[in-house]
């Protein structure tokens, strides 16, 4: 589901510099599965940070079930009071709920939330959805053109397609050619003719998360 990647250590180090008591909070949900912010990553990050900042700074860790659910975030209300900053290893949603629940304590994200994606292999994740809020893949053969097409076209292909490749690069396949091929193999080519009304979305390039490993 949500895929994230740990922030560079130097950034995290400078973020916690002013504080003496730091609690790193992991999430047992999506970020655990993509090896970015589960209990193990909390332990590893804390070990790395303590090597950087030296003694005198108290760095502890705790992992809760899901940081996007108030029930679990409330669980640690007694614990967080003992710290002067929180490092959250959850996705952006989790960090925000944590910050909202404990507004008096500074909360920092320890990971960059990247995408909604699939697990290609251990530690390799590919983006598949931009959460545009108006899913059309029922008409595009189960291929999301917003994520996969370099221009994020809702209606395609454009004139830039050349022998199955996209004009932006020789290594990028045209998503709309794949859409065409899948629909034609299912005898549903009429779907590609439907004109989809524009919606407001951000044009971004497709991203793949590859964890560095330990």
């Amino acid at each position: 589901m949500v895929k994230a990647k740990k922030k560079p250590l130097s950034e995290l180090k400078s973020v916690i510099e002013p504080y003496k008591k730091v609690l790193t909070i992991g999430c047992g949900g999506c970020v655990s599965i993509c090896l970015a912010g589960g209990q193990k990553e909390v332990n590893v990050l804390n070990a790395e940070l303590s090597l950087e900042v030296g003694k005198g700074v108290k760095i502890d860790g705790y992992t809760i079930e899901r940081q996007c659910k108030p029930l679990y975030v409330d669980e640690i209300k007694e614990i967080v009071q003992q710290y002067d900053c929180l490092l959250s290893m959850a996705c952006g949603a989790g960090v925000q709920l944590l910050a909202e629940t404990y507004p008096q304590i500074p909360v920092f994200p320890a990971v960059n939330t990247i995408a909604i994606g699939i697990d290609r292999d251990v530690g390799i994740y590919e983006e598949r959805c931009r959460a545009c809020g108006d899913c059309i893949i029922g008409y595009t053969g189960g291929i999301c053109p917003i994520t996969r097409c370099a221009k994020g076209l809702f209606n395609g292909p454009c004139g830039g397609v050349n022998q199955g490749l996209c004009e932006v690069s020789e290594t990028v396949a045209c998503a709309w050619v794949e859409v065409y091929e899948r629909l034609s193999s299912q005898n549903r080519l009429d779907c590609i003719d439907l004109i989809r009304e524009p919606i407001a979305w951000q044009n971004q390039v497709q991203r793949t998360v590859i964890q560095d490993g330990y």
Partner: protein
Amino acid sequence: MNVDLYELVRGPLMSSTLILFLVGLAFRVFQFFKATTRLPRTAPPVNDRRTVKQRVNETIKTVPRILRKVRIHYRNSIFSTTPVTMWITVVYHVILVLAVCFTQGHNVLLDLSWGFSFPSLPEKTMDMLTLFMIAVSLYYLFRRAFSTKFKFPHIFRDYLAILATALPFVTGFIAYHQWFDYRTMIICHMLSGQLLLIALLYTKLGHTIFFFFGRIYLHGELNLTRGTRAWVPDQDLDRLPGPVSENAIDEHYIRHMLDQKKTQMKIMLQYCSRCSNCAKSCFLYVNTRDASYIPSQKVFVSLGKLYSTKGKVQRQDLENMVDSLWNKCVLCDRCYCPIGLKIPEMISLARTICRSQGVYKTYDA
């Protein structure tokens, strides 16, 4: 009479045990390879244009970084959280192999029977190692009896496993020192050794052998190598569960689902050594320190029960599993098992079976 028994145990019985062991081992290897499949490479090889010299130089530059990683990894491993138990355990397993191959007595017999032998360790050393093994066995027994981490069902088998491993060492030690009647003792020693060899294949002591498959061949986050194989189901699911009724459950369907992954799941259930080393990798256990949160415990009360009863369970039994399967596990997929068992796969199968019968956690209560 005793002479005959001695000859019998030393000669034909020993040869048949060894042959049985080798055949059994070959069968286990075959079974493993049959139940797994080779994975395709997902990442294409990168076209690396650097010269060898450049590559060596760059690798040398990364050494400090790698050392640092190793250090951090070690600090977070079970060797650092439970150092005494882990180091004893590693040494214990190494001695086990040493004792079989490099004891003088064994080599003399080997030479007499088959005309070849391994080098032998000095007798005094072997004597000390044997004492160490007996002491560790006592430590294991003590830990199992008194630590809260070991409250498994059918705990008796766990004691038996420790005793079965210790017995050849105890009898060998007594025989070597010629206490009691030497012949009786050496016969006991040989018999218990033969028993251990067979148990190595057919009981949970097989974790020693499975380790090499689990941590080296299987593909996964926690493997020692970039494993290349993954489990495949014995058969495919060929139908969906029928409509759920109020009280009854569909035993045939449960059986169908159990059979689907039978080889894999039975191997994993059988070879779990119940060492509870998976405990600290589960954040829920770390947060609660409650033994029922230990990953292998959750598996034994759910999937273990389904397989041991061959799916003949009551609806109430499934409902009793909900707590372990849903409330006590979020399926975060991160349990670490030193011998390479895939606990999340077992928990998710148990969940699927429960769900097929309309038993699951409801969030709206």
